[in-house]
């Protein structure tokens, strides 16, 4: 609760709304005690006095009544009626919702049908019908406004009640022989009340507006008594000659409703866990770069060179170091595998290459990514965009989620081409068919008009690959492209990628958590753990003689091709949280070869020929392994 209030107070607008609302309410409460003129006493000799005239701070209306006094009394009335309507609607709605949700079945069905019918009405129309039947008057307007809002509450509360009615504690209460009424009162109601209160706070602004509206139409409060709405309604005829009589009550309604809305938004935001975690942020067009430290010199090792890359996630005041200084390279025609558990930073590493790490919260804080020698980090968005898909293309994990669900695959393919080349319609179609053929999709002409959800997982991934090929890139980065597929399809996709690499001279960076896949496809492999590379070397050599204990463990888990997540999770323990890395080796807590010195300090990535390892007590000594 305290935390909630703190959060609320941090939201300055909400705070302002709260303060204004508080002042208005206090003012309304003390109105009878203030030395005001009588609100309903007419004085025809002092009609339409301007604001700030003697004895009438806000002027007078068409009957010479003091506007300030009428305003405060009207505010009092409007607030009271709006609040009362909200309470009535909430109580009735909650009762109906709880009954429907608790009893379920036929009762529920019948009640909800009725609620749906009521919701089929254009809102105010229903209120008008009710007022028409009951006759104009403030009390009847209150009933009408409350009544049209009942369905809203009923529906909300029913949903919550259904969730609660099947919880264990309710079953337990039933078994204990409690009556239904008792269960509702002691078990359900306490859990529903907070929801009711929140729903009420978000609708009370509406209620005030609506009752004011009915009064404005002359269907609510009847003269001489006035709420804000009827003040406005009466002032309308003098709008042009004496606008102040309209502006005064109108502004008051605006102030009240705005304050309530500000406060309501603040409450909603404070309660939304997604806002806290920053999960509602919009990822920018390219990853933010805030590079500290010097940019590494180019080494000319390959077409793509990642040097000492550091990528972090900044969430509120914590920094998660997802990638902590990773160096990689890949040459044309070569396939590099990156292997590691989820959370090891392998995806973030390769997404950083083209600035595709979601940002916020992602920030690239150091290192360089060189394509053909030129550094891409900090390159202007325009340059990155031109290279995306044309020089470096991506294939993502789950094609169900990574293809646009509402566009035909043909159009998505054509768009990929069009992003870089202006082509005509027929040419685009021909190219798209060609691409689908290249990834061995049968009947490509017909498939063009399919939507992704009409295809099988394997076919969708082929489309994903075709899209990556669309602009003849030099490098393809495949981020676990086969994980979501079953074993046979997986094998087909792998052999397809392998063929494409050989026939087109593609460089492939292949991310996986499955050593079987690495063995089939990759020339070299890098093993990542907790945001760093812990072992690197030619695939064959690493498979034969792993040096890092983590690599050895990964391999022990994979007897054959066709992984699945199960195998990696067979390693006991979890990778460390990357915002709080332990001193020394990050793997120490899970390692069976750990010794005291492992936890002492930084362990470097030692190189020996083509092999490298970050371990003080490797399974096979590096010198031996390198041979």
């Amino acid at each position, binding site marked *: 609760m305290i935390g909630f209030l703190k959060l609320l107070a941090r939201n300055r607008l909400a705070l302002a709304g709260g303060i204004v609302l508080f002042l208005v309410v206090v003012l309304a409460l003390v109105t009878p005690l203030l030395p005001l003129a009588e609100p309903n006493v007419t004085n025809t000799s002092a009609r339409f006095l301007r604001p700030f005239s003697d004895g009438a701070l806000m002027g007078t209306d068409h009957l010479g009544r003091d506007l300030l006094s009428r305003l405060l009394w009207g505010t009092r009335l409007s607030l009271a009626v709006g609040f009362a309507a909200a309470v009535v609607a909430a109580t009735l709605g909650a009762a109906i919702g709880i009954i429907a949700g608790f009893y379920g079945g036929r009762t529920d069905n019948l009640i909800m049908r009725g609620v749906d019918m009521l919701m*089929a009405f254009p809102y*105010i*129309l229903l209120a008008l019908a*009710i007022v028409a039947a009951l006759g104009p008057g403030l009390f009847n307007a209150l009933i009408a406004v409350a009544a049209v809002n009942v369905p809203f509450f009923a529906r909300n509360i029913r949903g919550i009640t259904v969730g609660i009615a099947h919880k264990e504690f309710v079953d337990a209460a039933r078994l204990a022989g409690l009556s239904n009424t008792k269960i509702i009162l002691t078990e359900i109601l306490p859990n529903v009340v907070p929801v009711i209160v929140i729903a009420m706070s978000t609708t009370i602004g509406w209620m005030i*507006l609506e009752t004011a509206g009915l009064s404005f139409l002359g269907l609510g409060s009847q003269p001489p008594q006035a709420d804000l709405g009827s003040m406005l309604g009466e002032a309308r005829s003098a709008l042009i000659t004496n606008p102040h009589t309209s502006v005064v009550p109108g502004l008051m309604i605006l102030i009240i409703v705005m304050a309530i809305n500000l406060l309501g938004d603040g409450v909603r935001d404070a309660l939304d866990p997604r806002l806290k975690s920053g999960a509602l942020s919009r*990822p920018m067009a390219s990853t933010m770069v805030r590079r500290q430290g010097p940019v590494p010199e180019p080494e000319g090792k390959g077409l793509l060179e990642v040097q000492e890359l550091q990528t972090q996630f900044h969430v509120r005041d914590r920094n998660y170091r997802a990638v902590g200084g990773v160096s990689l390279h890949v040459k044309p025609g070569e396939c590099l595998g990156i292997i590691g558990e989820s959370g090891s930073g392998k995806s973030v590493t390769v997404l950083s290459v083209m600035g595709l790490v979601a940002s916020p919260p992602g920030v690239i804080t150091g290192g360089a990514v060189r394509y053909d020698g030129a550094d891409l980090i900090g390159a202007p968005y325009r340059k990155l965009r031109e290279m995306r898909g044309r020089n470096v293309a*991506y294939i*993502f994990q789950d094609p169900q989620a990574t293809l646009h669900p509402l566009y035909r695959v043909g159009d998505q393919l054509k*768009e990929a081409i069009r992003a870089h080349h202006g082509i005509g319609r027929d040419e685009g179609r021909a190219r798209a068919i060609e691409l689908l053929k290249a990834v061995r999709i049968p009947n490509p002409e017909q498939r063009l008009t399919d939507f992704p959800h009409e295809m099988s997982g394997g076919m969708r991934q082929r489309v994903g690959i075709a899209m990556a090929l669309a602009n003849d890139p030099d490098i393809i980065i495949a981020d676990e492209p086969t994980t979501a597929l079953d074993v046979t399809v997986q094998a087909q996709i792998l052999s397809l990628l392998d063929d494409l690499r050989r026939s087109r001279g593609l460089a492939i960076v292949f991310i996986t958590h499955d050593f079987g896949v690495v063995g089939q496809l990759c020339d070299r492999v890098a093993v990542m753990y907790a945001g760093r590379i812990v072992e690197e070397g030619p695939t064959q050599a690493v498979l034969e003689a792993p040096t890092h204990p983590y690599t050895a463990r990964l391999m022990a888990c994979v007897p054959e091709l066709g992984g699945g997540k199960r195998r990696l999770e067979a390693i006991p323990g979890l990778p460390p949280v990357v915002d709080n890395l332990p001193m020394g080796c990050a793997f120490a807590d899970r390692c069976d070869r750990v010794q005291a010195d492992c936890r002492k300090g930084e362990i470097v990535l030692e190189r020996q020929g083509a092999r490298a390892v970050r371990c003080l007590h490797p399974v096979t000594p590096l010198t031996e392994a390198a041979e």
Partner: protein
Amino acid sequence: MGRYVLRRLISAVPVLLGITVIVFAIMALIPGDPATAILGSYATPENVEKLNRDLGLDKPLVAQYFIWLGNMVQGDFGTSFSLNRPVIDEVLERFNATLVLAGTAFVICSVLGIAAGVVSAANQYGWADKAITFVVLLGISIPSFFLGMMMILYFAVSLRWFPVSGMWPIYGTRDIWALLDHLVLPASALAVVATGVIARLSRSAMLEVLRQDFIRTARAKGVHERGVIWRHALRAAMVSIIPVLGIQAGFVLSGAVYIEIVFQWPGVGRMLVDAILTRDILLVQGGVVFVAACYVMFNIVVDVAQSLLDPRIKT
């Protein structure tokens, strides 16, 4: 598709019946003798009795309902005593005017609201987002009738850009330009609240979509950010925006009541308010049922639009 439309039309029948039941039930709440209520307390007993018989009010409620329903199905909504003409004629004429007003407002709020929401989301936490968020908040907090009055004061009285009220000029030709001239202020005033609501929901729908994987795919393809936002994200966000448009159409349609009063627009809302004040119950009944039925039909259109937009919906 045709079968889907048909199915939706059939499923609307119980809703329409429900609406008539509700309206009938509400009207049955009228205290005292309805004929007296209609004719006023000065009516002669003979007149009251005759009206009771004419309206079938001497029969049991259920029978009354079915007679009323049967007549309505045949297009007979009864006769308005205050206007002395068939209810249906009056309602149709007035509804036309409302449709022009609410339809224009609906187009305005849909286009502006979605655009504002998209721009807001695309510049989240930037100055454009903050400005839009503030204006939106103002928009959903201001009573439309007050806003309409202020618009009259400023744009019609001070600046003299637009006429103060009415649908047509008192003298002069009744062409489309005259109508547009009269339409600008009321339609804008009516659109404001809905624009705000739609902008808000579009913003959050866009933010939701922008975090999804297929957006990253579009970016990885090298699609320009403009295309990512307007083509990819908005297209997907529309799936959750369209239902909101349907709901807001209802608000615009009923919110027209206030605007019609403020701008003296000869629409169905003003007719209803007048009818309530003169206790012309048949006119109220007919008007409410008619507008509600139109709204139900409109919602079918929305559903069909939704199914056209989202191929994943089974039709």
